[in-house]
């Protein structure tokens, strides 16, 4: 069984390592999606089917699209989202912080005393998860719902307030794209703005 764990861990870590070493941001995003799929594989190996499918659905289905939209809508050029580090000192600082985080995590793992392996691995049926979510954990479920609603309302307000100032955005977009079939909302949502620095 540890062989399976080793394979899943190697796959996840390898795709994560490739994700942050690629220069092309879209490739990094797609490799990150592979990493999340590896985490879902780990959940499946551990017997938590519900969490594994939720991981694929939420991370692979929703968060990945947010990441891709964000990458594409904030790049200066639509075709070539290549990232270069700003300066050598920034690279050094990033490496330092990363090493510090790794050191803290490794120290925490090594200093934890894991108990003996349980005889029967715990299984959670979907029914039990449902009862837990509706009973003892109902408060956390409601809080998460409120947070998501606030995020949705916030996103709508951000998008709507941009529409009230169409002069700066619409003019440049209209001059570069000849297509007139999209509505204003569609134009704002799906067109990356060419040649416009991300200063607004």
């Amino acid at each position, binding site marked *: 069984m540890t062989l399976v764990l080793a394979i899943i861990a190697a796959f996840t870590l390898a795709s994560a390592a490739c994700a942050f070493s690629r220069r092309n941001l879209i490739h990094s995003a797609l490799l990150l999606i592979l990493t999340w799929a590896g985490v879902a594989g780990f959940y499946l190996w551990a017997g938590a089917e519900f969490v594994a499918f939720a991981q694929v*659905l939420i991370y692979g289905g929703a968060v990945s699209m947010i990441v891709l939209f964000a990458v594409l809508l904030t790049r200066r050029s639509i075709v070539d989202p290549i990232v270069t580090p700003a300066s050598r000192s920034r690279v050094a600082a990033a490496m330092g912080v990363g090493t510090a985080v790794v050191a803290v995590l490794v120290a925490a793992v090594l200093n934890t005393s894991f108990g003996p392996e349980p005889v029967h691995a715990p299984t959670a049926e*979907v029914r039990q998860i449902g009862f837990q979510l509706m009973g003892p954990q109902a408060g956390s479920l409601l809080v998460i719902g409120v947070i998501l609603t606030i995020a949705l309302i916030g996103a709508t307000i951000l998008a709507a307030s941009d529409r009230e100032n169409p002069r700066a955005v619409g003019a440049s977009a209209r001059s570069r794209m000849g297509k007139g079939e999209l509505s204003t909302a*569609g134009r704002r949502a799906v067109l990356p703005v060419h040649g416009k620095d991300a200063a607004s």
Partner: protein
Amino acid sequence: MSAAFLVSLAASANAWMSGRAFPARTLVAPDADRFLERAPLAARDWVVGFFPVSLHWLVHSLISIVAVLAVFGLFFAFLTIIERKLLGRIQNRLGPNRTGPFGLLQPFADAVKALTKEDIVPAAADKLLHFLAPVIVVAFGLMGFAVLPFGRDIIPVELDAAVLYFFAASSATELAIFMAGWSSRNKYSLLAAMRALAQLISYELPLLLSIVPVVMLASTLSTSEIVRAQGGWTLGILPHWNVLTPWGAAGFLIFVVAALAESNRSPFDLPEAESELIAGHLTEYSGFKYALFFMAEYFGMTALCGLGVTLFLGGWQAPCAFLEFIPSYVWFGAKLFGLILGLIWIRGTLLRLRIDQLTRLAWKFLVPLALINLANAAFWSLTAGLPWPGQIARWIVSMALVAVPFVTIGRTLSAGLAPRTYKYA
């Protein structure tokens, strides 16, 4: 001798199926319909019996995979010709009728054409992603078939969280559409891919919300349990399918609309329409890769229709008690085929929606209706035990909870869009 064999066959089948309550039968020898019913499973067990016990799980899975691929591959092939002939008939013309009798060999001619076409990949394209996109979209489209109960015990994988698995599997197809659009290094492909992605994520919400009442009332995420929960008949002729309840009918309609949009099917086929940005995110695909995308769209449509049949139309349950002699997988196939014919009919009839009309329909119309449907289903479930005058009131209140929001929201949203006056015609 033969009677003893039949009795033992029936006894073994009964012993296997013991523990499940069957609705009362009114006629027909139990052995005959149980034989037809058990035939696919008996065939599978016969093949598995040839292999050593340690390999049984592998052979079991392989047989399920091969069966799903074979059945639904052929189904896809003949669906293309059926669709073309039906659309032709709706448009007052014959469909393809040259290749083979009544054009029945047309899918094979199409396959040969797709295979022998030149595979053009743009020089600036991202080769790996360009190649992977059709592969991923077909693979994850097929993975959705694993949790559909095709018959009484005929399901490839029995999962506790089957409905969640189905949506997890189909969420990766949206990623593949983005990969297809982006890897072509074509502004118009990317634009179309973003619009397709916006359409897909807009319609995921009504799709999932319309299914939540079904899961709530069956209190399980397992598809085979949901089908069993829709068993039984009132007075022997009225099935307990979810679509025959007010909240079920509304949920089914919302599900069908959202499924049409999720599989990029007319009237929501803006991403791949011929007059929209050439072929949308598929502009730079030719030959077999285009055929793979096409195949993935049909597999997605079939899988979603299968899910709709499972959750709303009672799956493999027969509509009346005396029709139970027809095997369960035949009922599933018939319902699936009927639903797909309905979708083809819709394709031939309705006009394509624009992207802003699409998203407005999803967010402003379907999501509120689906949320109200959820409340309606909760009301239905809480008033299940009333005596018969209460039952009549329950039906009336439930139907009002469906009709009134539909009419009010519909009227409010189409308020300013009165009959058009064309000034320049």
